[in-house]
């Protein structure tokens, strides 16, 4: 019982102590809890920060590489275009040079050939001179002809007048009009009269009927022009001498068809040809094989080449060293594909130093 009493005394202290301890523990607990939370949160924060730092570092790394790649690609394009432009400018300049000289040559030779034009114009003036001189000659010739015709006409008239007036000739006793004694020499008309024969009467009558018949139209008042037809052939031509064969017979003979002999009808080497034909058919009968015999090379012209055993199969020549240099082991590939080159090679750069032009020295 004492213990119980002691215990019951301690009970209220216990209660208080209990409460006190719990309270302090509670208070401590809160503080400790808060401290723990703080520590933990700080630590978690550190961990997350470290993780984030790591992430940013990785991200920066990836972005760095990606951006580097992009700009390298871009730069590559820039370089390609710049090189292309440079090359095109060079080509354009060379093309301009060619076109310039060609166009100059073409225009000067075909479109506006100054020297040909000059020669042509000189030729024309020369030709003109010739034509003018020829025409001048022609005109002079015509004039001379006309003058000559006039003169001849006058002469004829004078002669006709002299013939008509032949009675004005001077005689021994009476000097004619044209032979006056006071003149030193006789007048030319006098000389004409002496030389001319008197006109006969018949000529004057035959003049008139001509005039009215040849008048072509009722209103024409000029003299008719005489026709300039060609003269007829002479009448007294000699006849060919006979006797002649009957023309029907001659015709029949001429139109007879040709009947050649056998010797003429056959060609010269017809016998030989016939013999050859015979021989050919005989031999054909005995041929085994119809194709002509050819030399060895022509028989084997179209054959496909069969390589020897050493070149075919596994023990053939290796492509490594000539066709490719990298070893390739497809079983070890991660994906199913081989590595791809990221950027293809630049075609232009491959031609560097391999084209022909030397002029610009850029190549």
């Amino acid at each position: 019982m004492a213990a119980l009493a002691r215990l019951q005394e301690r009970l209220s202290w216990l209660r208080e102590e209990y409460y006190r301890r719990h309270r302090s523990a509670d208070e401590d607990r809160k503080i400790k809890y808060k401290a723990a939370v703080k520590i933990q949160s700080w630590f978690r924060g550190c961990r997350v920060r470290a993780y984030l730092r790591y992430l940013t570092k990785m991200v920066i790394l990836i972005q760095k590489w990606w951006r580097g790649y992009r700009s390298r690609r871009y730069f590559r394009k820039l370089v390609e275009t710049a090189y292309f432009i440079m090359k095109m400018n060079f080509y354009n300049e060379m093309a301009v040079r060619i076109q310039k000289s060609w166009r100059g040559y073409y225009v000067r030779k075909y479109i506006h050939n100054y020297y040909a034009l000059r020669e042509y114009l000189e030729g024309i003036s020369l030709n003109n001179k010739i034509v003018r001189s020829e025409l001048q000659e022609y005109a002079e010739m015509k004039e001379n002809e006309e003058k000559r015709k006039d003169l001849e006409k006058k002469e004829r008239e004078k002669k006709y007048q002299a013939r008509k007036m032949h009675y004005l000739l001077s005689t021994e006793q009476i000097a004619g009009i044209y032979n006056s004694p006071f003149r030193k020499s006789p007048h030319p008309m006098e000389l004409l009269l002496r030389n001319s024969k008197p006109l006969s009467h018949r000529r004057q009558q035959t003049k008139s009927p001509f005039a009215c018949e040849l008048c072509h139209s009722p209103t024409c008042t000029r003299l008719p022009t005489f026709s300039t037809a060609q003269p007829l052939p002479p009448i007294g031509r000699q006849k060919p001498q006979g006797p002649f064969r009957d023309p029907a017979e001659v015709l029949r003979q001429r139109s007879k068809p040709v009947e050649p002999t056998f010797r003429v009808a056959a060609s010269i080497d017809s016998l030989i040809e016939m013999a050859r034909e015979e021989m050919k058919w005989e031999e054909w009968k005995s041929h085994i094989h119809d194709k002509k015999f050819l030399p060895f090379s022509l028989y084997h012209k179209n054959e496909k080449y069969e390589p020897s055993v050493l070149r075919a199969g596994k023990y053939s020549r290796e492509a490594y060293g000539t066709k490719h240099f990298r070893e390739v082991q497809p079983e070890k590939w991660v994906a199913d594909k081989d590595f791809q080159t990221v950027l293809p090679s630049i075609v232009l750069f491959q031609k560097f130093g391999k084209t022909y032009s030397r002029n610009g020295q850029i190549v």
Partner: protein
Amino acid sequence: NSGVVSLLRPLLLDVIPTIQQTAALALGRLANYNDDLAEEVVKENILPQLLCSLSEQNRFYKKAAAFVLRAVGKHSPELAEAIVECGALEMLMICLEDFDPGVKEAASWALSYVARHNSELSQAVVDAGAVPLLVLCIQEPEIALKRIAASTLSEISKHSPELAQTVVDAGAIAHLAQMILNPDAKLKRQVLSALSQIAKHSVELAELVVEAEIFPVVLTCLKDSDEYVKKNGATLIREIAKHTPELSQLIVNSGGVAAVIDCIGSCRGSVRLPGIMMLGYVAAHSENLAMAVIVSKGIPALCTCLREEHEDHMKAAAAWALGQIGRHTPEHARAVAVANVLPTLLALYVDTHGSEDLQMKASIFLTKRALKSILQKCTHLPALEPLLHDAPPNIMKHVIGQFSKVLPHDSKARRLFVTTGGLKKVQEIEAEPGSLLQEYINTINSCFPEEIVR
């Protein structure tokens, strides 16, 4: 007027042939004199009676009948149509087939007068089958018949290309080309006129005429003593030259230009006109041909024409030809300007500018265009100087324009311009601001330093 025609009518049916012939001759001479009488002859129905028994009559009657038809048909197209309607063309064909050359000549003369009026009548003549008979007539030896047949072919082919083609298809060109060499002047006139009427219609016909090898024989015709032969020869060459540059080139190469220039120099009056036009056509085609004309000394000849002739159309033609020569390049314009022809052209333009006559308008237009085209290419300043002083405003514009093109580049010319008083003259010109003339004046003023301009 006193009923003579009706009195003569029964005489045509008289028994005695001489009376018929004389009656027909009388009717023909009456109709020939006056076109009223010709109408009366048609109205009195004489033509059918004349033609009814033509085929059995003798040659004198046929000649007289053809004479009557010719006399009636020559006055006007209506009378010619009346002739065609009463069936005269068949009778004329019968006459053309006759042996006597006089009858043929009378018949073809009548046909030429009928065909000359318009193209329907020509077509009627061709449809009656006249062309082959005429080509046969040309080959006859009598010169008068050749003349008339050539003139008929020329009248037929002048109206339209189809008629000319019909004449060509009958083979006329070869015979006509042979006859160019004939010494008779009137025949040559007709032959050349026939060939030029054929050649004028189209390029193919002109080429056919050229293929008959008339060059260079035609050039001798240009030296003939007869003026009309020269004129027709020049017409033929003009009709050939105007179609294409190749034909002009052919003519130039055979020396035709020189011959025509000589021909122009030796004639006076309207005979020169085809020659002048031919030079204009040749020069118009291309600059090489114009240079060929210049080289053959064409410009002095044209200048003399311009100065000597009094008629306006001749002057206008000469001005047009000079314009065609000078309009191609500055070289050509310089050649024209050096001949001192620009003042004459300007004077001609100013003269005719004031008049209101319709015919003058064509010559004004031609002169103005010629002047303008030469001025637009002329860079020879000494020749342009005199024009500064008297030109009207629209010509002045071109003159000042040329000055403004040349002066900025040539210092010697600038000095000359000032010393001859040209700059002073330019200042005196008033122009609206903003117009082309003002721009030119400004360009000229900017070539000179300020104090000279003031």
